[in-house]
């Protein structure tokens, strides 16, 4: 965060703190601080720099979202990096207040963690490698391709349950390895959250092949909490207020410029 932005955030936080101070302080792990877990990098949503788990620089949709939520709660956001996506979703106590990592709220995941109300709805996208000659137009067309997805992600589930490919699937744990596989052609197609994929492609259009389309999953991204965390109520109210005052829409416009509505739908 630039010093100027930090100042602006502080000023906003001070303003928002007035009504918040009247009610009880939000039940964060560390008083006055909202500790937010990330799973970097994700183009458009969260990129930056880390020293171990400490996040020393960050920017993107979810960084701005976390700061806006913290401001509403009258506290300051602090970020920690969780390199393994899967550990965001495991049961048990967490060393952070909430996680923002484009996590789709599903019933299966709700058995281990709690979710906030959605802040963004998204489908899964299928992006082809530049080396892929096939031009799939249906889900069945995808079966013969070497597909890749991030291990433990909605995309990986979708491949297993809906696409059922005939070729072994590659499931790297990190998105860095995933995009590298797509750029090199080792992955003929990647199944990943459509907003992130379209953003990636719009940034470096000549690096990747065409967008095959989206698979409608109607997922919603929610903040992740350890089961039973009492912070969920205040965060839900903050997200609802940010939706109402247009902040969420502005965040999408700033960070996720993409041609998402014009993409073909794979069935």
């Amino acid at each position: 965060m630039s010093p100027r932005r930090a100042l602006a955030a502080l000023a906003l936080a001070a303003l928002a703190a007035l009504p918040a101070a009247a009610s009880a302080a939000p039940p964060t792990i560390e008083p006055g601080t909202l500790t937010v877990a990330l799973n970097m990098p994700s183009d458009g949503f969260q990129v930056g720099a880390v020293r171990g788990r400490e996040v020393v620089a960050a920017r993107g949709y979810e960084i701005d979202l976390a700061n806006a939520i913290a401001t509403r709660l009258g506290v300051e956001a602090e970020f920690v990096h969780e390199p393994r996506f899967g550990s965001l979703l495991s049961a048990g106590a967490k060393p952070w207040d909430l996680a923002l990592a484009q996590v789709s709220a599903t019933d299966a995941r709700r058995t281990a963690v709690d979710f906030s109300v959605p802040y963004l709805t998204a489908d899964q996208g299928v992006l082809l490698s530049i080396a892929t000659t096939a031009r799939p137009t249906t889900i069945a067309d995808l079966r013969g391709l070497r597909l890749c997805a991030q291990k433990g992600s909605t995309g990986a589930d979708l491949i297993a349950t809906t696409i059922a490919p005939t070729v072994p699937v590659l499931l790297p744990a990190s998105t860095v390895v995933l995009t590298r596989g797509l750029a090199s052609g080792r992955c003929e197609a990647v199944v990943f959250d459509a907003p992130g994929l379209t953003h990636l492609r719009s940034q470096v259009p000549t690096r990747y092949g065409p967008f095959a389309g989206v698979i409608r999953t109607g997922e919603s991204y929610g903040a992740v909490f350890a089961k039973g965390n009492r912070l969920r109520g205040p965060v839900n109210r903050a997200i609802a207020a940010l939706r109402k005052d247009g902040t969420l829409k502005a965040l999408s416009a700033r960070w996720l410029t993409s041609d998402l509505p014009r993409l073909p739908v794979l069935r």
Partner: protein
Amino acid sequence: MIARRLRAVIVCGALFALLASAVPATAAVQVFFPRGEQLVAVQRPGTTVEDALRALLRGPTAQERRAGFRTYIPRGTATRSVRISGSRVTVDFGPKIMQGLNAEGLNARLTQVVFTATGTGATSARVLINGGTVLGVFPGIDASVPLTRASLRTPKGPTPLPTAPGTGVPTAETTALQQRLADLGFLPADAVDGRPGPRTTTGVIAFQKWARLGRDGVAGPATQAALAAATRPAPVTAGGPGRRVELLLDRQVVLAIENNAVVRVIHASSGAAATPTPPGSYAVTRKEARSWSVPFQVWLPYAAYFVGGIAFHEYSDVPVSPASHGCVRQTSFDARWLFDFLSVGTPVRVVAAS
């Protein structure tokens, strides 16, 4: 007069760069700035990697800027520390290094840093921000690991596939349009196949640009009327016999000329306002059928360089107005043809107003 002075500056710049790279002066370091689609080294006084990085952060001189050199490192970017360990240099930047959202600019910035930091003994450079490992930030380049010049020179992914010329059902109307465009030099003769599609559109745009009509690629009544009355374009500058090309910046077309007759008129997109293609007289310096842009990390198929990193090349996106980093983009329908037309030494005239 201004044009002549500009040309003299450019020639001086080219000569200086040539001499400087040929004779490694004592107590000089190399600093890298993009010029067109490639990084080009300039010399600065100094001996250490710190000297080189300081000069990099200061940016090109006014004279270098006039000759098309530029930097993608934001003003005010500072290094927090520079450490050398064996053959690896670690450069720690403040957060300013991640400013901006343009992917090409971010990637170009990183390549400038890596090339400049690896000039004085080190072979790999690790970039940190606020002392931390970089995750994301530079779209398409994994900067969480040390980077080498070789890794950035290595193309990522196969070359893009050429655009399909047109797969529609042949029509007599399209054949007539294509024949007229081919007769005037706006389409190659072998493009007359009756099939409407992107190749025909490219020819129509080339004609609309030449005739100073609206550049929509649609052969409407105004375009058809102008086509009916048109004659084959003539060169706008005088030249000797043999092959030469003119790039007309105002019309955004390339004229391929042989013995003072225009052989082809090609739809092209030159440097955008911030990175203009400098007018002047040049000659093709090198041809690369498969060229890789180091700063922008993209393929430039059929590249014919004529000054610094500025080249004619193929690109998937050729807008009707100036849009490139100084180079001359063409569609896949024309780039191969022009590449074959050009030889090393073929004169290139960049004309501001035609």
